[in-house]
């Protein structure tokens, strides 16, 4: 299969839109329906083995579903959720084969919470498959520029 960069961009923009608007369920629907999933935000560096080191996020399918449920249920988030707006850019197709596309991108995310603006920045690598319903995420890795710094609450999708 062969996919254009612009198709990947459209997909990532769509994902960004859902994340910015806390549409947890719709975002979860962007993930592959079958097979193992990984949603990884490394900690203390960009590549420490998540089996041997803490991660900021390291979710398989079950944990990802739990994360979405947790965000959905949290009452205080309904009282005051962070406002988000992110630009996704530098989208590149790193690799593409029969059943998987690897795409990298950078983002700058501006968060407003409790009247304070906070800036998140980093890069992502998506492994995508092309399902009948369109592209789907098999794994996603987000490298935060400050993943070895103290972070405030990350109670949204990144």
């Amino acid at each position: 299969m062969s996919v254009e960069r612009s198709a990947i961009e459209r997909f990532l923009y769509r994902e960004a839109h859902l994340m910015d608007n806390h549409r947890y369920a719709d975002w979860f629907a962007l993930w592959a329906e079958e097979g193992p999933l990984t949603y990884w935000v490394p900690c203390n560096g960009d590549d420490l083995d998540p089996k041997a080191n803490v991660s900021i996020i390291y979710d398989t399918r079950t944990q990802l579903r739990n994360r979405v449920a947790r965000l959905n249920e949290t009452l205080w988030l309904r009282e005051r959720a962070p406002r988000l707006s992110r630009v996704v850019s530098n989208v590149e197709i790193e690799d593409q084969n029969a059943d998987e596309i690897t795409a990298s991108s950078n983002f700058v995310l501006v968060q407003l919470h409790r009247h304070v603006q906070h800036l998140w920045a980093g890069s992502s690598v998506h492994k995508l498959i092309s399902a009948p319903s369109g592209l789907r995420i098999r794994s996603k890795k987000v490298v935060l520029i400050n993943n070895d710094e103290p972070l405030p609450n990350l109670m949204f999708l990144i």
Partner: protein
Amino acid sequence: MLSGRNDYRELVQDDRVSGRLYYDAAVFDEELEKIWYRDWIYVAHESEIPEPGDYVTRFIGLQPVIVSRDEDRNIHLLLNRCMHRGNTVCQSERGNAHAFRCAYHGWTYNNRGALVGVPYAAGYDGSFAREEYALARVPRSASYRGLIFGSMSASGPGLEQRLGNAARLIDQFIDLAPAGEVILRSGVLKHSFRGNWKMALENSVDGYHPNILHHAAMMLITKGRKVDMEAVFGEHTDALARDLGGGSAQLDLTPINRERGGRVVPHGWSAMAWEQYLDAMQRRWGVDRAREIIQVGGPHFCIFPNIIFILNQFRVIQPVSVEETVVYYYPTMLKGAPDEMNQRRLAETYLIHGPAGRVAPDDFEAYERNQEGFRARANEWLVLRRGLHRERRESAGTIAGHETDETTQRGIWRHYREVMQA
């Protein structure tokens, strides 16, 4: 002069404390002096620097400290400040180095702190004694079960004396390891909030909030399983809130763990791992003691002012300013336990804690709402009277209350008042 400004007998009363203690910069400065630069402060665990030359950098209060292990495996607590003009000599939070070289003029210190290199030495004559220019040391340091503490005060009670009742809880935590040791080498989660450090300490032994503030996490725990969280953190729990003395406090889940056979055996374990672990424990401790240890499980407690033991993790509180704080979460591995078990401990840490965990963010949101609320000054009091009528003094001199009671906070504050009023 500062203590002149604040009367801690007035600000800290038996059943209430003033919000001012959380936002007044003068109070914070005084805390640095009387707590952070006087008391024993946890800095690191020996297993973080297993090899000669290994080091980590930490802070005691606001002061940067290098914790290094020398070639003789001795541990040193050194101030991270060049003795020439004061540059930091170590820039990394962890690593291995036999020497620290200051970038500015190249003065070089070994990992014992000794000054071993001075460029263009002719600039200093005989009156210059290198021994006088070794990196400054933290005046006192000591370890207990591998936990390294430092004190910026040259005098005061010894570490074990200071630990008091908390010492046996450290044992309880570490004895879960078949090899009798915990290992901290799985990284650290760093989580910050805009609020005062004491909120994180009090919260760690606050048995009143979990079912309410953490309702979403509880929903996930109970979902499709018959666990009654009310019987753990709620009204009809058998657990206890305990004032250990010296500002240390505990949520004692032993009664519950006994029934459940101990927290250390989460559901969904492979039978094999369980067998392996049981076997290893029995070989070390004998059958009965092993069962006892496992049933009682890991303790949940804090040692004033900066270290907390919860589930599988060490949690460390780092004040930054009167209203900025960082909390560090270190997952601990049980030496001699099966990998499956340790991986589970690791996962529990990042799934539950840190900025994106299932539980911790609730507390951090609460801290920040608290700091906001403190701006209202018409009534400055925080109420700590919960359970005053039903707590009881125990033989060990500790005080035990219902798990949801503020016996723990009262213990923290009694100690605080004592040291701050001194």
